[in-house]
């Protein structure tokens, strides 16, 4: 009786073999890399992270950065920029994708055709081309700052080819009260929503949660803000000889990258949404109509919740794609992680192994976080089988 005849033992042998081959493979890569790096005199280790970078970066939100800052700060700047564009991009792509997906099923002939055209056009052209296109489409029509302002002007809001520049809000001490009011508004909205649900379950009466929330989150902080005598200063930008200095700037590279990512990904999301809505049996719509549910309630309460179960898993992949695709920022000078860290820093220091390892770790972590969140959401909305 050979050991090969027993499936369990065979499985063990297979796995041991695979692990052995893999271990040998990994070991040989590591040893080769070490030998090669030594032979070529390449430095190793993470000491370079504390060295001064020596180059400028166009936008460094939330992180103070100068040319003297270390390569590690460059890493953080790139990380923040990547996260910002990915997060905003996912959010906007979801909204636009939903609108186009619903429009694709619209009864309005023109709207339906335009939505179809949109999807077919943007899905089938490489993203890199679209990024280049949107960059020039954003830059071309905008005037230069010198066409708009005289030197010495104080400017509160300006849209020119250096970006959208607005006065920097600086809160006084009393501003913290306003933030607390906003926070309280959000918490209260959640409480109201929970109470409204309980009431509807008991009495069948509805409560306008949306308007109540609107009032709590927007109106209440505003009232507090004005009651305290507007405790916020706006520091305007000042026109120097060439450009506006100071203020907050949203650079055109960000806008172009965001536009391209959102428009490209939304085309895919729209198809996912369409498929999801079509996957809900037509009987559901008819049954809802028969029960007298209003058309907009029908969509919101009957169709979409069921469609979401089909939509969420592929939607997760699209969010991941968008995050990964943000690495194409290199093409248009948006300083994302890949551009400033895996690009400039790598070129400056030559420490490919360490830098690529850190970069990959970031993208993998972002992927895991996104997947984790979407899986959690998916399990929450999953069909509870009875």
């Amino acid at each position, binding site marked *: 009786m050979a050991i090969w005849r027993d499936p369990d033992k065979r*499985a063990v042998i*297979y*796995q041991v073999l*695979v*692990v052995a081959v*893999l271990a040998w493979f990994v070991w*040989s*890569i590591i040893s*080769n*890399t070490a*030998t*090669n*790096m030594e*032979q070529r005199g390449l430095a190793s280790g993470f000491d370079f992270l504390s060295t001064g970078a020596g180059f400028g970066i166009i936008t460094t939100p939330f992180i103070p950065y100068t040319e003297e800052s270390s390569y590690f700060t460059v890493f953080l700047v790139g990380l923040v920029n990547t996260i910002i564009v990915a997060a905003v991009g996912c959010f906007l792509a979801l909204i636009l994708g939903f609108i186009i997906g619903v429009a694709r099923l619209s*009864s*309005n*002939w*023109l*709207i339906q055709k*335009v939505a179809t055209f949109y999807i*077919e*056009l943007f*899905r*089938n*052209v*490489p*993203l*890199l*081309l679209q990024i*280049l*296109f949107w960059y*020039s489409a954003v830059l071309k029509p905008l005037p230069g700052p010198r066409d708009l302002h005289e030197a010495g002007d104080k400017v509160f809001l300006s849209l020119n080819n250096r970006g959208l520049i607005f006065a920097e809000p600086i809160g006084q001490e009393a501003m913290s009260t306003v933030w607390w009011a906003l926070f309280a508004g959000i918490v209260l909205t959640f409480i109201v929503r929970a109470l409204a649900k309980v009431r509807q379950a008991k009495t069948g009466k509805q409560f306008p949660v949306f308007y109540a929330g609107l009032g709590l989150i927007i109106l209440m902080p505003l009232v507090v803000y004005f009651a305290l005598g507007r405790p916020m200063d706006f520091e305007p930008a000042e026109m120097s000889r060439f450009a506006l200095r100071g203020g907050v700037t949203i650079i055109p590279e960000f806008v172009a990258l965001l536009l391209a990512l959102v428009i490209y990904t939304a085309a895919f999301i729209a198809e996912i949404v369409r498929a999801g809505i*079509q996957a809900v*049996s*037509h009987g559901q719509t008819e049954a809802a109509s028969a029960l007298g549910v209003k058309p907009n309630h029908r969509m919101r309460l009957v169709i979409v919740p069921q469609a979401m179960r089909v939509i969420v898993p592929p939607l997760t992949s699209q969010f*991941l794609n968008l995050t*990964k*695709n943000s*690495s*194409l920022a*290199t093409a248009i000078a948006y300083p994302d992680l*890949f551009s400033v860290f*895996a690009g400039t820093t*790598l070129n400056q220091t030559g420490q*490919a*192994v360490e830098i*690529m390892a850190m*970069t*990959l770790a970031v*993208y*993998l972590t972002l*992927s*895991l976080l996104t997947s984790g969140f979407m899986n959690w959401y998916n399990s929450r909305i999953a069909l509870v089988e009875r």
Partner: protein
Amino acid sequence: MAGGRIYSGDLPDQPAPMATEGPVAWLRDNMFNGVFNTVLTILMGLLLLWMVPPALNWLVFNANWTGGAEACRVNPDGACWPFVSARWEQFLYGFYEKSEYWRVNILLAVLAVGIVLLVFEKMPGRKYIAFFMLFIYPIMAFILLYGNEKLGLPIVDTPQWGGFMLTLVIALSGIVASLPLGILLALGRRSKMPIISLLSTIFIEFWRGIPLVAVLFMATIMFPLFLPPGMSFDQLLRAIIGVALFASAYMAEVVRGGLQAIPKGQYEGAMALGLPYPKMMRLIVLPQALKIVIPGIVNTFIGLFKDTTLVLIIALFDLLGIVQASIADPNWSIRSVPYSGYAFVAIVFWICCYAMARYSRYMEAKLHTGHKR
């Protein structure tokens, strides 16, 4: 009965009321039913009026179709198509030896015929054609493209490959190499052996979690470090390996979807017949699973095809790369040239991807014969 008239026989047909037929009714029913739809239609119509005529003007009516660089310099407000016609050979073949173009032409012709035969379902011997395209064609393509002294074909080095041909080489070899790897990984991920399943999952999630730019970058910069000293790979081969590994992870997920869609009874039936695992997979499960996932494979290929544009960052001259290099030519330094070049690339990619997407959707519709609205 005063004043009444009695007809005998049928009355002649009256034309339908204006309100239910004809273009006006169609417009009303499909575009102007209700305030909301009317507003939408008008807004959309305005948007189209604002965008479409200038685009068409630039692309077609106001474009330069003939003449050389001079014509474009005189009229910079329209696309400059002479730029494309002056360089189309480069856009198609890259820097491939002129005298050897016939080799590429043969391959393109075989590819086109093969695809047409494969798409045509009633074709007898379709299985053999598929086998030929998947296994024999790549070998033939390599021998023809690279050359072989013994066969009297002069060697054409890979740095000379470029243009649309290179785009096809990378995308096709990426997909052909990723298919078997993807199947293995999908089987591995669904395997009952915990370590194999775990390793497959890690492999798949790793490659799906990192950007292709990073993969290509590693293939160029770090791959040489991984190899034993004194040994090196061709740059193009490195890129293709990177692309194939990247695509195999996506392929694995597509195949896994197919495997999951096969009813459990099929597995159980095969096992009840005493088929060992490899035979069960090869004869029962995979043929069914792979058939369902054809649309998924095509979609992965579309994605891969578009992503080949990224190889320009590692200095391979694919279609986009060669167009960018041509734009740099000082003899063609005209404002409309870059836009024309990019528009040309976009149109080429759009045609290829759209055709593939249509095919994928057709397959999907054919396979999905269930409840439709």
